[in-house]
């Protein structure tokens, strides 16, 4: 105590002020940093990532150098997209101009779009551009040559609470769309091609395959219920879908019909035999033989499905869950559950943000937005050990 008399009281004031200043600065940084990513893209080689945030900022991240760079403050929040097969990214600004640029910043292509994009994609050669809007329309191209595959249905984005998810495989020329599954998508005349054709296919909101050549739907892939996300394997051979009722379905694109459809096992109950004659709810309909124990906090309610290794392994992300389930494409059983970490919590908290999860399957890289913060979470998949490790938290 006696030693304290020697410390000038002025010092306390200085320390106090410094603390206050520090707190204010932290608060300011924190406040400025709270716009989470709404869409995330990662380049094919796993080297770069683009994110578009809720406050309009678009960032380009160098995953190897662990740095980031602001591209714009005026971005469309859902527009971040990594161009496949190149070191290039795409985004749209609030004036509806679409920008494709190399990671060096060199502009490769810009064009004006007629609508704000609610999800878009482009091919490696930059020749084919597909985009959706808030009415879950599907457009090919832009400008006067823009053609419509699926007509705008006013209110879909707001009504269903998510974007229409799109995936494209250049090799097969097949476009995949997934929005929301109606229980009778496959059976009701309401959703028949004939009836929908007269409506511009505007109610074909379930998992659907389209031909970019004929601009017509090829097949409906029914079975998912309510909010649905679907993805194509890199080789274009498989469609994998997941919905908010916990169903995940796998189809070969060569035979997209119910006979060839597979259903993933339930995490808690095992594999359900949909063709069983036993009445629904009978335990005999479930095969538990290869079930692994799911940790607490795992949920089948699916917000996104993404391939993580070539066309072999894919991940299923649960709604509001920090776990992802690993599957092999022709195997219905979950192989492993990966804990993505809770601090920061990954962006699985909203179906409208299901674009904030992207992978580079050739490199085994997974990039996710954060639930609360504005940064990204980067993970590396090891196909031999079957591990998924968080390698970086980008802030």
């Amino acid at each position: 105590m006696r030693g304290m008399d020697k410390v000038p009281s002025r010092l306390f004031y200085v320390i106090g002020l410094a603390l206050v200043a520090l707190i204010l600065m932290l608060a300011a940084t924190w406040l400025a940093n709270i716009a989470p990513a709404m869409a995330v893209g990662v380049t094919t080689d796993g080297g770069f990532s683009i994110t578009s945030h809720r406050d309009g900022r678009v960032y380009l991240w160098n995953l190897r150098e662990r740095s980031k760079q602001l591209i714009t403050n005026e971005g469309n929040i859902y527009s971040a997209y990594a161009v496949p097969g190149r070191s290039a990214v795409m985004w749209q600004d609030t004036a509806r101009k679409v920008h494709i640029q190399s990671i060096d910043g060199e502009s490769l292509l810009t064009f004006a779009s007629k609508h704000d994009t609610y999800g878009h994609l482009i091919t490696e050669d930059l020749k084919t551009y597909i985009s959706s809007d808030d009415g879950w329309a599907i457009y090919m191209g832009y400008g006067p040559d823009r053609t419509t595959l699926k007509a705008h249905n006013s209110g879909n984005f707001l009504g269903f609470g998510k974007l229409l998810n799109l995936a494209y495989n250049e090799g097969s020329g097949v476009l995949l769309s997934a929005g929301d599954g109606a229980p009778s998508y496959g059976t009701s005349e309401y959703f028949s091609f004939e009836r929908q054709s007269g409506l511009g296919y505007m109610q074909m909101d379930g998992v659907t395959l389209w031909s970019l050549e004929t601009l017509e739907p090829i097949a409906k892939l029914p079975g998912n219920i309510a909010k649905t996300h679907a993805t194509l394997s890199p080789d274009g051979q498989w469609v994998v879908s997941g919905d908010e009722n916990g169903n995940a379905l796998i189809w070969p694109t060569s035979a997209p019909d119910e006979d060839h459809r597979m259903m993933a096992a339930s995490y808690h109950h095992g594999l359900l035999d949909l063709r069983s004659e036993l009445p629904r709810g009978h335990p005999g309909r479930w095969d538990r033989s290869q079930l692994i124990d799911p940790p607490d906090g795992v949920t089948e309610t699916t917000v996104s499905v993404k391939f993580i290794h070539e066309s072999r392994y894919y991940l299923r992300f649960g709604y509001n869950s920090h776990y992802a389930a690993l599957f092999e494409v022709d195997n219905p059983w979950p192989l492993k559950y990966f804990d993505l970490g809770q601090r920061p919590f990954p962006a699985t908290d909203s179906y409208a943000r299901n674009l904030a999860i992207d992978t580079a399957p050739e490199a085994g890289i997974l990039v996710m937005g954060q639930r609360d913060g504005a940064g990204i979470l980067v993970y590396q998949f090891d196909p031999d050990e079957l591990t998924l490790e968080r390698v970086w938290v980008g802030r």
Partner: protein
Amino acid sequence: MGDLTLGWDRLPLGDTAQLAFTVRDAEEGQRVTIEVLGADDQPVDQFEHQLTKGHGREILTWKPDDQAQADIRILQTAEDDEDPAGPSGLHFHVILNGNHSERSGPLLLTADLEVEHTDTQDKPLPEGTQVTLADAEGKLHVSHADSAGRTRFDKVLIGAVDWVFGSAQAAAETVRIADQRSDPSSHCGCQVLVGAPTIHLKAKHLPPPVMINLRDDAPSAAPQVLSEQELNYFREQGNNALLFVHGYNVPLGSPGQLFARIPHDPGMFVNAREAGWERLSWTTWLDWTTWPATVQQDPEALGQLYPRAANRLTDEALNGIGAHNWRVHMEHQLNRAAGFEGFDRDGGEAYTRILGVAWSGDVLAHDFHRSELNAQRAGRRLVPLLRQLHQAGIKINVITHSLGARVLLTALNILGEHHTDLLDHAFLWQPAVADNALSNSPASDPHPFKVGVFPYAHRAAKQFVVLHTVNDGILGGRFNAGGWARRIMPMPARGAAMRNYNEHTDPLEEAIRDSGGAYPKKWWPMPTAGLGGPLTGLYDEFSPLLAGGVPGYDDPSGGQRRVHSLNWRHLREALLDEMRRYEHLDLTDPDPLPEYHLLSPIATRGVIRKDHVECYLDQLHDLIENRFRVGSAPRSALGHVGFKEIRGQNEFIRDHSAPGGKFAFVEQDDWLFTHGGMKIPSDPLFEEVFKKRIMQQNLLPNSSFGKY
């Protein structure tokens, strides 16, 4: 050069009008144009006249052209209702040298008017229904419909007329007059202009609304099934019926009033001498205030059009209160969602009535369990109605809100014992029942009487759609703050500013939510509430059930409480007696359904048997001994968590949420912030649940609503 003044004197009634006006400083032989105008100031006739003198009074006669078709024009409430409107009859003015004179007083021409009233399904107004017509002079004419729905009114002043039906049960708002569509919220009569001595007019009205009152306090004569007329209505309107069962804490209430007829300024009239026409406000002539509005009116839109009346244009005044308010809003939103674009665009024929169901859910806000008992009673009363529709071959879809789910599930549990797929869809919106309520097994039912699960309910409908949200403050507390970022999804693509949806929350519900929600506390012992309150009330004649002290209340002394053995024996006997009264009933589909009183806490099955009563007695005894405290908490509400918790535990529910199953669970966290938020939905909510989820993804592909 000339000057005109018009005569103000009333002319005798007849079918020829005398037009009188005074001229000054004109010339004999000078040509003038006479224009006869209607109540809306549009010309009805125009002709030339040569003045007989340059100075003095001119008198001509005019007779409406017999050959002309009756010209009927619908009147809408004037936008600027403060403007002392001109006469509502025919009048004229004179044009001299391009100058218009002032408008004359009314031409008191009369005609006989015959109106043929049919509803939007072309059914005639029931014979004998009284129709009261007010004419431009304010004179009332009464007629009774004949078997073709025709009414006749003699010597009606040509001009604006309006009518009201004598019985709200016979007909609702007029939506079509001649071939013109009329929007009920702004319709205020029509104008009869010219025509033959007898003017024939066809008018269409909406059929009356359908509300089934299953309340405990419903008058004994109140029907609990549909009338033959109502059944026919649904048969012909697409052979389907869409029911809506409201939630907890909703009184019966009363309907609202039509805006066009709410007195804007009662008793206003303009002095004839000064402005040329003596007129009383419509509303003082007919007792419009008792006329219920049966279709929704938009208080905001009307308030903008008529700002001076805006403070009176509340949702309550226009759309009613309680169950009536819910019915009007739901009917409107469902028609909109199915594609209805308004009475002025689609006409009344497309508009389809829903079936509103009222039940006694309105107890004190914290007295949840009592409301649940009421819901069970109402569910039993719903059974005959569902059976009636099913037997008539009418497709049935039901939407429930909150505790209305318990009403429906009780009914479906009873029907499901012997029927499958009675309903096409059951939409359970924020259902206030246990998350395992749809399970087929009462195992893991923490309810002390095992009525948390409705094991047969799933059989009675083809598809169940459960709409849930963690943001429902009544059904449960917030799970985790999870960053306030989550509350403002989804955002429009350009939306950089943080939109604040807090305007949709109700501060009381916020407070309830922050304290964990009301539903999870439904078994908490509380004076007159919890489980003890309703049960001790029910078994009042056997009280006290606990020896010593006041039953149902906590005993601060913590002394030995024992079930009062004598009273308990009497209660036991009474319960078994009640059971015996009905146990002989046919197990398969008892009709009528027994109405249990003392056994009502377990009356979620058709017929209660001895073993059910024995189980109940054990459970009740334990409960009483425990001073009405339940050892466990209720399961989370289905409307709060959906099947998040049950999915991993229950194979049956998981099976039915797989492709081809009966259950679809839809989370709507981002949209629904208050428990009652869906009644007057915000745009996003409307789009989601009604248009997309209910209509597009489920109801229209697999069933139907109206003729949409």
